[in-house]
Every structure is written in C-alpha cells, then in structure tokens.
C-alpha cells in the first residue's frame, strides 16, 4: 500500500484523501473553520456545470471550494497498485 501527496483540487472524482497540511495563506482560517485540518478525511463529491466550484465532504458536512482555494490544501491519497 502506497501513498501519494497531491493538492485537494487534483483529487480525482469520487476519491477520498486525508488532509496532510494547509498552506499558510489568507484563506487558511476559513478552511480550518470548515474542519480542513491535518488528519481530516475529505471526499470529492461533485462539481458545478462549469467544472468549478467542487463540493467536498469533510467532517460530516459538505463544502464547496473553488479550484484555486482547494489548491491550498495538501491531501494524502492511498494508491492501490
């Protein structure tokens, strides 16, 4: 079993990951308020018709983020092969 690190916005559709870190940015506090802190599990759910924003499930609720904002979050994703 291996892990790969990627940006939250790169998470493939329906995939799950665990938050590794959140970049130091003016967005950080808002993301933390939603529960996007190291250790939290995130699942990518669906995107708007134009491809942006995307809805993620985190700590029992659903939050929508734009690609640029989701790029501030690094997630650890398990790879099977």
């Amino acid at each position, binding site marked *: 079993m291996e892990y790969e690190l990627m940006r939250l916005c790169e998470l493939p559709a329906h995939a799950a990951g665990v938050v590794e870190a959140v970049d130091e940015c003016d967005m950080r506090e808002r993301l933390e308020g939603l529960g996007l802190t190291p*250790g939290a599990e995130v699942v990518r759910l669906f995107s*708007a*018709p134009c491809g942006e*924003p995307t809805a993620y499930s985190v700590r*029992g*609720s*659903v939050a*929508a*983020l*734009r690609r640029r904002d989701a790029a501030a979050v690094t997630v650890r994703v398990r790879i099977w092969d």
Partner: protein
Amino acid sequence: MGLTRHREGNGAREFRGGIVALMGNPNVGKSTVFNALTGLSRHTGNWTGKTVDSAVGAMRGERGIGVCDLPGCYQLSPTSPEERIARDFILGGRADCFVVVCDASCLERNLNLVLQTLALTRRVVVCVNLIDEAAKRGVTVNGGELQKLLGVPIVLTNAAKGKGLNDLKKAIFDMLKGEKENEKGEITAERWDFVPTPQWAEAERITRACVERDSDPRGARQLKLDRFLTGKVTGRLMLPLLLAVVFFITMEGANRPSELLSRAFSAALSWLRTACSGALPPAVEEALFDGVLGTLATVVSVMLPPMAIFFPLFTLLEDLGFLPRIAFNSDHAFSRCGSCGKQALTCCMGFGCSAAGVVGCRIIESPRERMAAILTNPLIPCNGRFPALTALIGVMLAGALGAGGGVVGALVLTGLIFLAVGVMLLFTKLLSATVLRGKASHFVLELPPFRKPRIGRIVVRSMLDRTLFVLGRAAAVAAPAGLVIRLLMQSGAIGSIRAFLEPAGRLMGVDGATLLAFALAFPANELALPLLIGIYSGTAAGTAGLASVLALNGWTAKTAFCALILTLFHCPCAATLLTIRRETRSLRWTALSALVPISAGAVLCIAANGIWSLFA
C-alpha cells in the same frame, strides 16, 4: 425575508431574569430554536447565512428572560464579522447563559466551536439539534457520554418538532439560577486579545466516544439528487425550468382571486358611496373614494394575489435547500464578473424584497464584492414589482394568444428575469472593473442536506406575514399617494406635469402619465400600476378594468413591453434606499445604487422602443 419586524440589536438589558445567547455553526437551526423559545417567527431557511443579524426576544412564559439569536459562526477567531459578534458577546459578559446549538449529523465540526467557547466560559448549555435527521442518516449521539466528557449540560432536541425543548428550557433555567461566576465581571486586556486555538484533535476524540455511525441510506439518495441538480446539462436547465414553473403557477393561480377581489371592492365602494352621499362635501368625497380608497382597493386586488402565491412557493424552495445549489451552479458566472456565487443567494432574497436582499449581502465576506452586490441588488425585481410584471405581460399578450397564453406568459417572465440577471451581472462586472477594483476573493459555501419542508407552516406563515405586510404598507403609502394624485387632478396641475414628461415618455416608448406614475411610486414599487390607472381614468380600477383602461389611452403591445422594462428596472423604493444608506454608510454609494437601475431602465426602454418600431 426580513419583512417582519422584531426588536433587533444586541443590548436589551431590560431583561431582569438574564440573557440567553444562542450560538452555533451556520444552518444548525439556531433561529428555529429561537422561535421555539420565544414564540416569535423569525424567518428560517435551509442555507448557511440565512440569519445575518442578531435578534432579541423574550422567552415564552418567562418574560423576564431575554433570548438573543446570534449569527452563525464556525469558530471564535476575531477575523470574520459574525464570529466577532459571538466572541464579543462572550468576552463582554453580555449574556448569562450561552446555548451552543449543534447539528447532530456533523457533531465533530460543531464541537470545535463548543470547545473554543468552553475555553472562555463555563456558562454553556450544549443543544444537539436535528437529532431526528441524524437518526435517519444513521447517526446516534450519546448525550450522557457527551455530558460526562464536556462537563456541561447536554440537551438533545429536534426544535422544528418541539422535541426536547422542555429539557432545554429547564437546563437554561438551572444555569441562570446557578451562582454567577466571577467571569462576568471585568474583562482584562489580555482576554480581549485571546485567540482561541482550534480543538480538532479533542473534537475528534469526543466524537469517537459519543457518536455511533451506521450506514447512511439517505446519503446516497441525497448525493444522487445533488449530482442531478449540478449536472452539466441538468444543472444549467434547472434554474430556468424551475422559475418558469413557479411563474406559471403564480400567474394562473392569481387571476381568479384578483378578479373576485376587484369585483368585491368596487361593489363595496359603490355601496359605501351611496350610503354616504350628501354627508360629505363633493371635493372631499371625490378625494376619499376615488383617491384614497380606490387606490387602496387596486393595490390589494392587483398586487396581493400574486404575492400571496409566489412567496410561499419561494419559501418552499428555500426550506428544501435549493438556494445553495443555485449559488453553487452560478458561482462560475459570478466569478467571471468579479464576484462570487453568494451574490446569487442575495439575488434570491431580493426576489422577496430588495431591502432584505441588501441586508443579506452581509453574507459576502469581501467588502468589495459586498458593495457590488448591494448596488446591483435592486436590479432584481422584488415582490412589489412582480405582480405589475405579470399584469403587464397579460396586457401585452392579450388577444395575441389563446389557450397556451399561460405558458407563454410564464416563459416571457422567465426571460425578463434572466434579462434582469444579465444586466445585474453586467453592472457587477462594470463596477468591479472601475470603482470597485480589487483582487478576486475566495468562495466557501456549505451545501446543507436537502430537508423536507414544513409545508403547512410555510403556507400559513408566509401568506400571513406577506398579507399583513402588504396590507399595512398599502394603507400607509397607497392611500396618501392616491390622495396626492387626486389633489393634483383637482388643481389641474397634473395636465402640465404630464405634458412636461411626455417627450421623455415617448422616447422610452411609454407616455408622460406612465413616467409620472413610476416617479410617484417611489415610496413603494407596488404603487406604480394602480397610480397609473388613477391618473388615466380619474378613478382606480381593478385588473378587470386594467387592460381596457390602458387600451383606451393608446397602449399597444409595444407600450406594454416598454412599461415591462421600466418596471423591471425601477428606482429602488424608499425603504430599500434607506437600507442601502445604512449598510454602506455613504450617500454617494446610495445615490449610485439608485442611478444604476434608472440608467439601465432608460437605456433599455429607448432601445426596446427603437427596435420594436423598426420591426413593427
């Protein structure tokens, strides 16, 4: 929709039994708990940021105790305005008991706020709300265990159904009776600087101990519905289709009651007039019946039925949780105009009332985007202009269509709404490219689960609120405006004013009388059509007479279309301008907010007139 008035503000020190502050994450049902505790009817809706201000009310059965509903917040950092309100409430010792309302389905995130609050005060009651919804999603919260771990009273509730509220009240009374701790005293400087640390690890630990999670049968269905509503094709079609259906129901449903009301009023008025004939001097009689009562009757019969149907339908969508999906789908369009999807939410509120929409702009965090949203909000036709639109569409399409008229009418109205939204986007882009230049901000939006709306409650509440509000406003504003028109007519001044406005009116495809009526409708947009009828005929008439009165005065389909554009882009009413002044704290921005729709209306009317004349 902010149409009912409560005593608002944060102070309310007149409560001797103590103050209870309700806090919690957005959209966990704080306002529902507030309504249940106070017996008031603060508007609730299934979306984050529905409540942007705080309200104070007395507890039902215990008038000495004040309940304060604070805006939702995720944590207690002093950066966001809502969070600062909650934080200042705690630090300032302005409440004697803090009820932190939590959503049982996502307790972990709510516990972060609970733990941060507990770091500041122990006068906390934790209310775990929405337990029935959580149970359906396979989530069970062990209240006893939670109480042991947190060390403060825990109450499990389902506030919408009234479940657990007695326990909540008892916990609050016990807390208020208990010895007041020292912490309510002075606040030292270092406490004001206190920045609470996120407590996620602790929240996770507690959640693991107290929350049991089974499989979630509804989750899959909700996700499916969400994927459908945000799909590439379905997501784009959803909004226009939905609006068309709502408009169709409103227009078809309002016709009959409008006619009945109009007939009943004219019968009652002529009876009353015969009964009092000779008792009053002729001039006074004319002013009273034709001016005051006639205008009042028109406002009620033309305006009330569409409002009373549209408003509950809209509230239904709101309760379902539809609005956040609209914001989600439209964020991309808004972001290209330098704004964000939350502006779509404020537009939706603007449908109900522009003033409420302007206040709702507080949910937009970036000051630049908030200002753009405030200035462009009046471009969305509010409930006061909405019935005039449906009536004018009826006039425009009269005779041209047979049985399918209802569907075409609804489609025309949908098209007009999209025109309004388009113009609003254009102005937003213009503003953010010129006076409101700045960098694009972030967009974080919570998508709450779809919830079954409480239909009975919605219908009763929104119809009652709406009816009382419209009637009150009609009495307060329509009557004097009708009197002004009557006096202008009796003095003969109206002829010269109409003649003065005639050239401008002609250019815009209407006439001087229409412009005068729209100008006089400044106190309340719903007055424009009834006043116009008053000017034309000398007496006010109901809908039955509307088409014929307009036709007698030379109205064609083109005139009706230009009047539609004028109604769509109308100077914001006095109440809206006052609200904008309060929210922006600037006369210049307020003036600009009036200038935006007026200029859009004038330009589009002239263009519509020109294009229509070319082809006709």
